[in-house]
Structures are given as structure tokens and as C-alpha cells.
């Protein structure tokens, strides 16, 4: 197991290296000088020189890159250009909000998606199945930020049941956290629910059509045991794959949804930073996202081998 983790970690290195190229390159692909871009056309010469110095733009690109990676490796992401704060401080504050939102979103996707998928798979082509399948088609097609607006209108403005804006983590009490999380978490999970439902349905239909299932039925095993013990276990690899995919999808969904609910998370920060062209913040946030995705992929890889020993 340790060797497996070791080889997997080694395989991540080229990916990570390329990711740092991309993230570092971001501020250099634009047509204009980054310092001028940040400060606007009307900035004074001295101020531009100052920012160029702060960003280290006077060095050759390779030197800049090596310096930047060296600092990042030590956890120093630099200072924000428009806020007098370290990027790591900003991320440290934003990350818990986004993580809570993503976890809640993934849990909702799985908790609703898996039973729905199984439900549809056990009665293929029935009216209920068609309803579930059509529902998941709508789920991947509805823009999540719009769904957020509609739900805010209903739950926060019309019925006054839930807060319309802001966010609280578990740290400030379970009840408060739940009230602030449930609506945005449901919104970020809509496409997740749809994806999980679709995949689980497909995998279960296949698993249930296996010869072994017929044998189990013939020997008189209760349907429930066949369904939950045998068929579901044979679909486990698909389900694990989908959950891995789900983290990436949900993470992407939080970006815009955080903006709608004014949740001070990573997405909210990166949007503001992009509007203000605060590159150190953008780079820090994007790097954090990439690290999360890589870590999740690693966990999924390991989970495969625990669940299905046939995979080597």
C-alpha cells in the first residue's frame, strides 16, 4: 500500500510541474505589461516601477519562475496587490467555507443520486424511470446560478425561511451552519445529483443483468440482498469513479454559486481577484484548486484498490 501511494505521488509530480508553469504563465499571456494592467493606464511611472519590483517583473522569465516556485514550495504565495494581506491568509480564511460547501454538495449528490439511480435501474423503462432520466437531463442543463436566484427568491425573500446571503462554518454552531449551507449546497449539487443518478442507473442495470444475479434469484436469495449486497458491490467501481469526478464538478460549481450567495469562499475571491487583476491571489487560489483535485484523484486511486483487489 505504501509503495502504491509512493508511485502515485511520483506520477503526480509532472502534472504538478506543468500546473505551476500554467499558473505562473497566466499573468504573462496577456498582451500588456502586468504592472500596467493591474494599475490601469493612468498610473504614475513610480507606482508602475514599484509594482514591477514587487512582482519581480524585472528579472528574466526563467528566474522569475524559479523564484516563484521556490517561494510557493515554502508556502509563501506573496501578497495581494489590492488588499494589504498575504495570499495565504486570504486562502486560509476562504478555504474552510468552500470545503464545507463542496463536501455538503458531494454528500447531497451521493445521498440523493445513488438511491434514485438504483430506484430507476430496478424498473427500467417504466414511467418512474423515464421521469428520473428526464429529471437528470434537466439537472445537467439548468444553470446553477439561476437556480440559486430562484431558490433565494422563494426560501429567503418570499417565505423568509433561510438567509439569502453570507455563510457560517460548522465552527459557529451546527444549526447556523446548516441554515447557511443547505441552499447553496443543494444548488451546487444539482448537476452532481444528475450525474450520479445517470451513472448509478447504468451500472446497476448492467450489474443486475449479470448471470450471477439470475443464479442468486434461482437459489432463492431475497431480492433485497441481491440488490444491496451483490449488484451494488459490483457497481462500486463506477460509483467511486463518479464520486471522484463529482469533487471536480462540484468545485467548479461553487465558483459562481458563491458569488450569488455572497459566500466568502475561494470562488468569490478568485472572481473578485480576476475583476481587479490581482494575480497573486488568482495564482494562489488556482493552485489550491489544483492541489485539491490532485489529492482527491489520489484518494480515489487508492480507494479503487481497496474496493476491488483485481485492479493492480
Amino acid at each position: 500500500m505504501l509503495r502504491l501511494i509512493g508511485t502515485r505521488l511520483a506520477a503526480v509530480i509532472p502534472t504538478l510541474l506543468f500546473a505551476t508553469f500554467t499558473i505562473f504563465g497566466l499573468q504573462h499571456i496577456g498582451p500588456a505589461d502586468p504592472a500596467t494592467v493591474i494599475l490601469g493606464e493612468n498610473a504614475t511611472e513610480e507606482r508602475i516601477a514599484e509594482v514591477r519590483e514587487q512582482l519581480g517583473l524585472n528579472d528574466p522569465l526563467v528566474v522569475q519562475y524559479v523564484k516563484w516556485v521556490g517561494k510557493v514550495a515554502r508556502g509563501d504565495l506573496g501578497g495581494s496587490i489590492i488588499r494589504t494581506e498575504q495570499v495565504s491568509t486570504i486562502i486560509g480564511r476562504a478555504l474552510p467555507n468552500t470545503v464545507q460547501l463542496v463536501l455538503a454538495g458531494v454528500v447531497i449528490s451521493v445521498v440523493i443520486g445513488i438511491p434514485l439511480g438504483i430506484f430507476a435501474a430496478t424498473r427500467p423503462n417504466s414511467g418512474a424511470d423515464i421521469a428520473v432520466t428526464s429529471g437528470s437531463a434537466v439537472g445537467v442543463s439548468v444553470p446553477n446560478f439561476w437556480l440559486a436566484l430562484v431558490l433565494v427568491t422563494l426560501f429567503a425573500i418570499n417565505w423568509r425561511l433561510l438567509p439569502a446571503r453570507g455563510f457560517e462554518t460548522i465552527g459557529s454552531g451546527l444549526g447556523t451552519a446548516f441554515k447557511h449551507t443547505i441552499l447553496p449546497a443543494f444548488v451546487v449539487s444539482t448537476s452532481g445529483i444528475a450525474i450520479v443518478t445517470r451513472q448509478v442507473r447504468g451500472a446497476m442495470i448492467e450489474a443486475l443483468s449479470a448471470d450471477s444475479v439470475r443464479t442468486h434469484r434461482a437459489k432463492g436469495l431475497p431480492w433485497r440482498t441481491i440488490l444491496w449486497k451483490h449488484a451494488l458491490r459490483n457497481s462500486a467501481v463506477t460509483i467511486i469513479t463518479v464520486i471522484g469526478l463529482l469533487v471536480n464538478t462540484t468545485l467548479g460549481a461553487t465558483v459562481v454559486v458563491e458569488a450569488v450567495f455572497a459566500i466568502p469562499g475561494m470562488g468569490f475571491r478568485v472572481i473578485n481577484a480576476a475583476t481587479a487583476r490581482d494575480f497573486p491571489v488568482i495564482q494562489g487560489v488556482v493552485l489550491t484548486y489544483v492541489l485539491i483535485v490532485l489529492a482527491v484523484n489520489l484518494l480515489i486511486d487508492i480507494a479503487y484498490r481497496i474496493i476491488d483487489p483485481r485492479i493492480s
Partner: protein
Amino acid sequence: MADETVVTVDTVDTPDVASAAPAGRPGRSRAEKFDFLWADTRAKVALSWILLVVVVAILAPLIAPHDPIEQDLTNVFQGPSGSHLLGTDDIGRDFFSRLLYGARVSMFGSFLAVFVAMLIGIPVGLAAGYLGGIVENVLMRIVDSVLGFPAIVLAIGIIAALGPSLTNAMVAIGVTFSPSVARLMRGQVLATKNHLYVDAAEQFGSSSLRTIRRHILPNAIQPIIVQGALLLAVAFLAEAALSFIGLGAQPPTASWGGMLSRSAQYLQVSPSVQVYSPGVAITLTVLAINALGDSLRDSLDPVAGTERRVRRAIVRAERARRQRA
């Protein structure tokens, strides 16, 4: 009732589709290739809606009752009325006209993104699959790395560098889509290049470029077209999202995402029809593009297509049995 229609159309038209490629004639004519769209009610409805949106996008200047950026500060937040079908927005612009013009932005933007994705992804995939070796290794490493970024976040980073505009936003989205095209293209090339006809062409002295263009590409492109249709749906959502957060189409240009963003700012006072209409327009269009993509895939993949026909036959039989009972 709607289901009933599906079944009838299917029964009548399926044999035609099956016999659309008579033996002994290589390939189907262009018109026949797209016959399946009219054999499938889902595809027919989806295609009609998409065509409607495209026509509206093209004809917007002719059919819009008002100028989409003309302000009327004495008439803000009006509800629907005879002269303003969907009312007016926060600075008195006609919401219905803006909705019509918004179709242009969304359609142009999403096609641009898919075009960029193909422009990068197809050559990269072709090169990786055809050349193999170190080229393949390096290219695929890069492809995998880009796939590790959540697409929207990478796109936001690129937009920050290029400056916010519709074109930049959709180029950025296209770039983030290109790895998935490249990966699929490579797989297709690998599956195609070992066929005897490719060997034969090379034996007869066909150059690499000619082999790729004449023999590999035509036989590998179909799944890419399906992928393109499905990416179009994602691009459509991405355009709306980026315009919503202010990084896509810039004001005063009317875009569906941008209109929702303004309605969101004035959620308490905006007529509710202005909160719903752009969202419904986006949802229906994305739903239609996805449905069309699925139909395209089914028709190109004979196994999936057959499976679906078999499933429908089962449903039909079940229904008939229940009616008899």
C-alpha cells in the same frame, strides 16, 4: 400522450433509417446522413428549438420591438405590458428585446468556444495518436495536467490575463475544453491507424499528411462531432455563468447571463418574469443541445441506437400488454 407520439413515429420511421444505407453504395448522401434527426421525436423537438434560437439570434435587429440598449429612466422596473412584453429593467430598457439580442451572444460565444477547442484539440490528438512515442507522451502529460484544473477556474485565470470580454472568455473556455477533445481524438486515431487500408495507403506512397487527411480523419471524426455537440451545451452554460459574474459579455451588450445578474442585484424589485425568462431560455437551449448530442451519439453508435430501439420496443409491448389486461 407525448410518449405515445414518440412510439408511433419510431415505429413508422425506424425501418427507413435502417435501410438508409443500401448495400453496395459507399456511405450515405449528406441528406440521408441526417435523416435520423427526423426519425427521432426528441431530436426533432430539440433541433426545432435550436433553430428557433439561431433564427432569433440572426434576425434580432429585425424582430426586436425596441433598441436593446436604449434607456428610459422614467420607465424602470415595469411589469409586462403591451409595449414591453416582459417589462423594463433597472434603467428602463425593453427586457424582451434584450432577451432576443441575448440569443446572439450565447450562440456566438458557445460556438466560438467549441471552435477553439476543436482547433487545438484535433491537431494535438492527431499528432499524439499518429506519431506516438515521445510526442505522444509529452502531449498527453500536458493534456492530463490541464484536465486537473476545474475548467471554470482556469478559464477565470486566463480571462484575468486577457481582460474580460465575450471573445476572451469563450476562447478561455475553448482552451479548457481542448484536452478532452485531444484525448478523444488520440483514442480514435489509435483505433483507426492499424486498419489495413491505412497500411495500404502508406504502402502506395501516401504521405503522412495525406494519410491523416484522407484515411484517418474521416474515419475518426464522428465521435468528435458528438463530443462537440455535448461541449456546446457546456459552453453555453459557461458563457451564461461568466457573463453573470461580469467576466463575459460586457454591458451594455445584452446577454442572458448578464441580464440575470442585473435581475439578481434588484431581486426584491425586479418583475419576477425577468428573473425567470432568461433562466428558462438558457435551460431549454442547453437541454435541446444535450438532447441533440445524445441523438447524434445514438445514431452514430449502432449498438446504442439499437439498444434504444429495443428498449422502446419493450416499452411498447409492455404498454400493449397492460392495455389488454
